[in-house]
C-alpha cells in the first residue's frame, strides 16, 4: 500500500473486520461485517459528495 498510497485521494481504513480466513461467514457475521463497513465509510461520505460536485466557482461566496 505504501507504493500505491500517493495515488489515492482518500484511503478508507476498516476496523474491525472479519478474519481474512473467514471467507464464507455465517449470515449474522456477514451482516455484522457489512455494518462495520458502513460505519467506517459513513463519516467521509459528505466529503466525497462535496468533492464530486462540479466546482461552482462562478457563484460568489455570500457568507
Amino acid at each position, binding site marked *: *500500500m505504501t*507504493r*500505491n*498510497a500517493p*495515488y*489515492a*485521494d*482518500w*484511503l*478508507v*481504513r*476498516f*476496523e474491525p*473486520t*472479519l*478474519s*481474512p*480466513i*473467514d*471467507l*464464507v*461467514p*455465517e*449470515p449474522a457475521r*456477514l451482516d455484522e*461485517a*457489512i*455494518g*462495520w*463497513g*458502513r*460505519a*467506517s*465509510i*459513513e463519516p467521509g*461520505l459528505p466529503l*466525497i*459528495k462535496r*468533492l*464530486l460536485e*462540479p*466546482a*461552482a*466557482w*462562478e457563484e*460568489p*461566496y455570500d*457568507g
Partner: protein
Amino acid sequence: METALCGPSSSTPARSRAARSTGSATCSACATDPFQAGRHRRPIPRPAPGARRRRRDRGPPLARGRRAARPAARRARHARALRRAGAALAALAEPLDELRSRLIDHHGDELSARELDAEAGRKLLVSVAGGGGGAGLVYIGALRAAGARGNRPAYVIGSSIGALVGIFARARPRAVGRVRRARQGARPARALLPRRDPAPPRAARPAVARARAVDRPQLPALRRRPAQDQRPRDSLRGVVAGVRRASFERLPQRFRRQPERSLRERATPDLARSTLRLAPAVARRMWQVAMFFDPRVVKPVALGGDELTRRAGRGRRSGVLGRDPRRPALRDRRVGRALDALLGELLEREELAALVDGGVASNVPVELAWRRVQAGKLGSRNALYVAFDCFHPQWDPRHLWAAADHAGRSSSR
C-alpha cells in the same frame, strides 16, 4: 539545601521529586559514575519564588480564552479568504475564457469543447478495493452506503476479494442476499452474472472547465482523445497477479510442478487428504504465495480491460461465463475449455507463466487504476480515487504463517 536520593526508578518519591524540580530525569553524577548510579545524594535546585505560580495562573485562562476565540476567528478568516478568492476568480474569468478558446482552436481536431468541459468540470468516482480475504467483506457495506448517498462509483477496480465484492456490490447490488441464501444452501449461479453498464457521466458546466483546464498538471494529456468508443462496456476491473516467465523459471521446481502436484493430491484418498495431507498442503501453498510478494516476480494484470479478457464475461449468451444462467458456468466443460484457451492466450501475450491472486502484486491497486484512467479508459481523466484497504494497518506478509496455521487447524478438525 535539601538533598534527594538519585534512584534508578522513577517511582521512588525522592527521585520523582528531584526529577520534577529539575525538569529532567537524568543526573550528571550518575552519568559520570555508573557504578554508583542512584546511590549518591545531589542537591535539588529550587525554582525561583513565584515562577511556578505565575505559570500556572497565566496558563489556563489564556488557554480557555484561545479555545473560545478560535472557532469564531477561524470562521472569519476563512470567510475573508473565500471573499478574496471569489474576487480573484472574477478577474480570472476573461483570461481563462480566452485560454480555453485557444486550447480548443489548437486541439480542435482532437478534442471538442464539449469533451473538454465534460472532462475538466466534473470528477468521477473511482473505487479501488483491496484484497484481504474475509476481512474484505466490509466493502459490501461501504459500497452500499456510498451508493445510498448517491456516490455511485464510475469505475471499480479491485484485487482478490475486492474484485469479487465489486462484482456483487457494483454489478449485482442484490447479490449479497443471494450469497447469504447460498450460504444456507441455495444456488449462487445467477449472482455471478454481469449486468448492463450505467449511463455515461453528464456533461459539466462550461465555466468550470476554464478553471480546471489551467489547473490540471497533466494538460498535455488532453491531446489523447478519450473517444466515446474507448469507454469500457462495463466499468469493473478485477486485478490478478501474473508471474513473470523469467522469474518463474528461476523458482524451485516444487513451485513449478503444480499440475502434477494437483493431480497427485486429487488422487490421494479422502481420509488421508483431509486429516493428514491437507494442512501441510495449505501451509505449503501459502508459503508459495509469500514467495511472489516481489514486483520483480509478479506484475498486476487487469481483467476485463481489453477485448481478450472482456470475452470472459460478455453477456449471458455469447460470453464464456454464463451461457446458461441455470447452470453453474465453471462446471460446464465447454466453458472450462474456452477459459483455458483464453487464459493461455493471455499468458502468451503478457509473457507470463502463471496467474495468482491479485493481492500478491498489488493489494490495493490504486496506481494501476490511476494509470488506466489517465490512459483514457474511463472517458475522463478527472477522477477522485477512494481506496478501500481492510488490511491497513494490521496486516503484514509475515502473518501468512498464522493464516497457514489457522487453515491447518481448521482442516484437521
